[in-house]
């Protein structure tokens, strides 16, 4: 028996996705594989790249404490940035969610909008605010009496964390916001009718329900911070290197591509492991909330 419809439903999806699939195999998977292979090639100042298979680059990364320190700095900055966005972004999303319609959409635009504004422009703004010891940020903090002596922001990890937290904040607010949308709007009234005070409501009712949102936001912020380039490059300057800026240097200044490829491969592998691992953990822990 002929079956027009059924034949279509077997062939059609593959015919429709074939162009995109070929694109992705051709110019994403193959280049990535080539990069991994590149990390096993040899390189010399004068001989350039030699397509041999050696572990030299990997040994160098494993043994030279410079790389250990650099990766540790990268992840330390990413962790601090994640904590800062969670501590400030989650309450803000909650406050935002309780605003009335018009204000809610206005402030949502104000807070999420920067997500689409050039990272270079946003980081430039922080560079201007930090601007040496008498930058605007320090002047303001000192006149408010928050600090006594100026904090060095420029070319420090503190500055990087602050600027990165600003760049990543929309992701956290968005993620918590999405979790809040799934909340029954009457749930707070229900808790209140049972005699719960505002603190108890937040701690016992709201927090457990938005936790998956905070955690998935944290994964996004962490992975993007650990691989961030523009902000560390501009705020951190030439000496305070993170993984992304180091790889950039190896590729475009030192021209030691194999070593740069090894750094990039390691960064990718570490991030994939962390992201996939923590995603699986969150989904297991909060299986019922995600449903």
């Amino acid at each position, binding site marked *: 028996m002929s079956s027009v419809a059924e034949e279509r439903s077997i062939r059609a999806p593959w015919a429709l996705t074939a162009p995109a699939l070929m694109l992705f195999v051709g110019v994403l998977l193959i280049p990535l594989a080539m990069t991994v292979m590149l990390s096993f090639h040899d390189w010399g100042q004068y001989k350039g790249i030699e397509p041999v298979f050696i572990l030299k680059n990997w040994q160098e990364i494993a043994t030279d404490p410079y790389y250990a320190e650099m990766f540790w700095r990268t992840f330390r900055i990413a962790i601090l940035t994640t904590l800062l966005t969670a501590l400030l972004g989650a309450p803000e999303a909650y406050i935002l969610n309780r605003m009335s319609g018009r204000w809610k959409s206005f402030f949502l635009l104000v807070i999420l909008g920067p997500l689409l504004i050039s990272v270079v*422009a946003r980081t430039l703004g922080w560079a*201007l605010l930090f601007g040496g010891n008498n930058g605007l940020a320090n002047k303001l903090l000192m006149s408010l009496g928050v600090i006594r002596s100026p904090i060095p922001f420029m070319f420090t990890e503190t500055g990087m964390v602050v600027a990165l937290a600003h760049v990543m904040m929309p992701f956290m607010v968005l993620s918590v916001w999405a979790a809040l949308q799934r909340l029954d709007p009457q749930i707070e009234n229900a808790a209140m009718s049972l005699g719960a005070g505002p603190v108890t409501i937040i701690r016992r009712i709201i927090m457990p329900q938005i936790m998956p949102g905070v955690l998935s936001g944290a994964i996004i912020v962490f992975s993007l911070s650990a691989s961030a380039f523009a902000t560390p490059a501009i705020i951190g300057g030439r000496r305070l290197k993170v993984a992304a800026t180091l790889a950039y240097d190896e590729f475009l200044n030192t021209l030691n591509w194999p070593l740069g490829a090894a750094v990039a491969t390691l960064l990718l592998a570490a991030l994939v492991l962390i992201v996939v691992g923590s995603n699986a953990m969150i989904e297991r822990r909060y299986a019922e909330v995600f449903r």
Partner: protein
Amino acid sequence: MRRNGPLALVFHAVFVTVMVAPILVVCLVAFTPEGYLSLPTNGFSLRWFRTIANYPEFIHAFWISLGLGALSSFVALLFAVPAALAIARYRFRGRDALAALFLSPLMIPHVVLGIAFLRFFTSFGLGGSFAALIIAHVVIVFPFALRLTLAAAIGMDLSVEMAAVSLGAGGWTLFRRVTLPLILPGVISGWALAFIQSFDDLTMTVFLAAPGTETLPVRMFLYIQDNIDPLVTSVSACVIAITMTALILLDRFYGLDRVLAGKGDPGR
């Protein structure tokens, strides 16, 4: 919904101020009449906007960025629309794996993508070419184009298509007359979001761009590396103005929270 207390509103005010401050400072400094970085305390001046005209490399970079964004977003949609229809309509083996692959550029750090593309294109002698930039940008904006098109395709009432089929429409006619018009808002928003992503990308592009194919963010970044002066703030102010315009249009047209929901979300 109950109202926020005074403490919450103070927190909110500080939060919003800090979020806006860096962007505001850039825009303000751009209007300084002085020859150095300063807030325009003695009146506003357009002198630094006029100065841009003396730096043709910024103008050139702007056109490169504009062309690159428009073209790569369009090409990405040519691939993404059929793929989105397949993923939305059919349950087939490998469907989840395909969807994960198509969204993977969101998860792979752009430094790694930049390096991979640099390695790939130089081995074909395409290093630094505009063609290489287009292909690379198609890949990185693809997930954004796919996601919004997919949302539109999933939200579409399939019986409308069945009705068209029963009336005798098929193949290309069906797509052009019924399917495309129905998913068009999603497709256009996907294009806009993809354009913004391409227009803003620095991290990946910085590896691929050569003198002559530098995009605006790359040009700005390289300039800032050497020194920060009011010129780069006026250029930034222009970029911010362009993005804000696109943003407001996108919000009017499609709703910003819908566009951004789940953006960059690696897991799903």
